[in-house]
């Protein structure tokens, strides 16, 4: 057992009490990284070796010296008897989609590989102000476009600590892999269609997509501006609650950061689920995807093990006093991905037009005659295939002659996805739910390269998470079991706007009640 096997909560308590120094904790994190992470992602990566294939590769940029300065500053405050924040001495990794002043901020793209941010994202600034020790930037799908982290321009891409032949999920795969492997106790990720919750499920950690507007997006390199949510990745529910409390709240730099008071999530954490109404929906127990040949929707039940984990969670919660409400209709769930294919692409295309080789980032090194040729060569060389796909689709479905047929229709379907949740959570409605309990993903982590390249199949990995992004509501994924393939299964709670407290209470109750179950004793492969 090392210092990196303790929770963030306990670590901060010990650092605050002077029982452990932040520097000691940091050195323990750096030792773990040295053992499990392997070489960091880079643009010039060459051939993958067998050793590479056995490592986690969570990091792109490790900033050990900067982290030491932060840790020494925390320790100095403790020694001087000065107040330190709730995350004092807690090692944190940051998805490389957030800007940190003076640090490379690449979005895992060649086009931003040379970009050093001149300002710090609000979420990062708040976490550091709370005493977290920022270890550096972790890898992701390029510009967050993917569900496996394989599309990063910085290779080797992250691998799943439970089985390094598997993907960690994505796009926050570096975040969830770094926490699962005990390289960081907390990680800051983002969730646009499930990009925190899906990799959290694949890596056996806790991931939270807060309500849209709960956490500032200032300094987040944008993908889908109406969908993007910064959120915590942690090893347990308490740590996730602690982290969200430190970074949530209004921000004068982001007009979409809502002016809603942030409750003390830890104060209500142990209140249990007695009397809580928790729903199960048959629409989350199946997946629907288009047949590659005909384009017709095919419906398939989820694997038994995935369903069983969710039903087990329901049984546990029922024993704890929750009222389980079955057969809650969520009839538009299957349309979440088709609507997302339109809305996210339009927003992505709009956001990506700013990368042009003029103001910052990559400019082609080959010859060009005029501005247009410079743009074309810069963008062709600087962007990988996934950003290119999103730009092209976004332009097509928002073109004047197609916008009504595609974009307007998708935005109206988004209203219906929202109305499913409004009906389920309506205190005067038929179901009166406090939370909906669902599987997080349709499968456990898939093999590296098995899905990558098929952009449709990859997107459907987010089928059970994307409705919450359309609706803006909060969601939490936490480990719910281990499948027969030895990989973690995630279960998900969804709750009404700004009801993150409910998610933490339900998650904590389930986590505590199952603490002695055999599957919780199993460790990721890289830690065995």
């Amino acid at each position: 057992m090392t210092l990196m096997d303790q929770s963030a909560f306990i670590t901060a308590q010990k650092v605050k009490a002077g029982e452990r120094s932040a520097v000691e904790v940091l050195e323990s994190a750096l030792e773990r990284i040295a053992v499990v992470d392997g070489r960091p992602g880079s643009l010039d990566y060459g051939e993958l070796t067998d050793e590479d294939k056995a490592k986690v590769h969570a990091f792109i940029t490790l900033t050990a010296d900067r982290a030491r300065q932060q840790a020494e500053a925390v320790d100095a405050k403790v020694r001087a008897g000065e107040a330190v924040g709730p995350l004092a001495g807690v090692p944190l990794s940051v998805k490389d989609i957030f800007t940190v002043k003076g640090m490379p901020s690449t979005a895992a793209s060649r086009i931003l590989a040379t970009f050093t941010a001149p300002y710090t994202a609000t979420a990062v600034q708040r976490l550091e102000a709370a005493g977290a020790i920022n270890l550096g930037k972790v890898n992701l799908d390029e510009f967050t476009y993917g569900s496996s982290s394989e599309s990063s321009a910085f290779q080797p891409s992250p691998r799943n600590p439970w089985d390094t032949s598997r993907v960690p999920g994505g796009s926050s795969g570096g975040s969830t892999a770094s926490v699962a492997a005990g390289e960081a106790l907390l990680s800051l990720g983002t969730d646009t269609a499930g990009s925190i919750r899906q990799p959290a499920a694949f890596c056996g950690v806790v991931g939270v997509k807060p309500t849209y507007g709960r956490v500032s997006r200032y300094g987040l390199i944008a993908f889908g501006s109406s969908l993007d949510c910064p959120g915590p990745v942690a090893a347990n529910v308490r740590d996730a609650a602690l982290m969200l409390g430190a970074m949530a709240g209004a921000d004068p730099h982001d007009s979409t950061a809502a002016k809603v008071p942030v409750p003390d999530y830890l104060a209500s954490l142990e209140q249990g689920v007695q009397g809580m109404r928790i729903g199960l929906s048959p629409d989350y127990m199946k997946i629907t995807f288009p047949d590659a040949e005909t384009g017709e929707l095919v419906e398939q039940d989820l694997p038994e093990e995935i369903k069983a984990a969710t039903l087990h969670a329901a049984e546990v919660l029922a024993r704890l006093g929750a009222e389980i409400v079955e057969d809650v209709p969520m009839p538009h769930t299957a349309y979440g991905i088709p609507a997302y294919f339109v809305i996210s692409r339009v927003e992505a295309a709009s956001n990506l037009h700013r990368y042009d080789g003029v103001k910052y980032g990559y400019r082609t090194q080959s010859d060009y005659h005029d501005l247009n040729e410079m743009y074309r060569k810069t963008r062709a060389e600087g962007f990988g295939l996934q950003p290119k796909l999103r730009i092209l689709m976004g332009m097509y479905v928002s073109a004047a002659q197609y916008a009504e047929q595609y974009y307007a229709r998708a935005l109206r379907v988004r209203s219906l996805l929202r109305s499913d949740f409004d009906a389920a959570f309506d205190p005067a409605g038929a179901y009166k739910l406090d939370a909906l309990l669902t599987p997080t993903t349709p499968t456990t982590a898939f093999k590296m390269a098995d899905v990558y390249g098929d952009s449709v199949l990859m997107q459907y990995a987010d089928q059970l998470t994307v409705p919450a992004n359309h609706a803006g509501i909060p969601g939490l994924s936490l480990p719910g079991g281990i499948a027969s393939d030895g990989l973690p299964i995630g279960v998900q709670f969804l709750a009404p706007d700004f009801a993150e407290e409910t998610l933490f209470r339900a998650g904590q109750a389930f986590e505590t009640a199952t603490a002695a179950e055999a599957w919780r004793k199993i460790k990721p492969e890289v830690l065995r």
Partner: protein
Amino acid sequence: MTDEISPDLFEHLVDLAAFAFDPEEAEYLRRELNNQLKAIHQLENVPLADDVPLASHGVTYTAETRAGLRPDNWAPCENPDEILAQAPQVENRYIIVPDIPHTKLD
């Protein structure tokens, strides 16, 4: 089944997006676009009453939750040289771009 995005339409999109692709890349991207459109067409199966509004955001902002506008106060940039240093080509604190082609509009 005819591809919705034909090679000609694809070339038009590529031009608008200021990209340039080799044939292999172009074929992959066009195939994926057409596959994604098959999924997108499932939206046509959703009955939409006339009163279903467009949702630009999931969460509704109210007077209580909306952050509101900041005061429009001028403040100097703290680090203009740091920001200029990010540009690929700078001369005398001007960002340099190649010749801008002129098109005569009829």
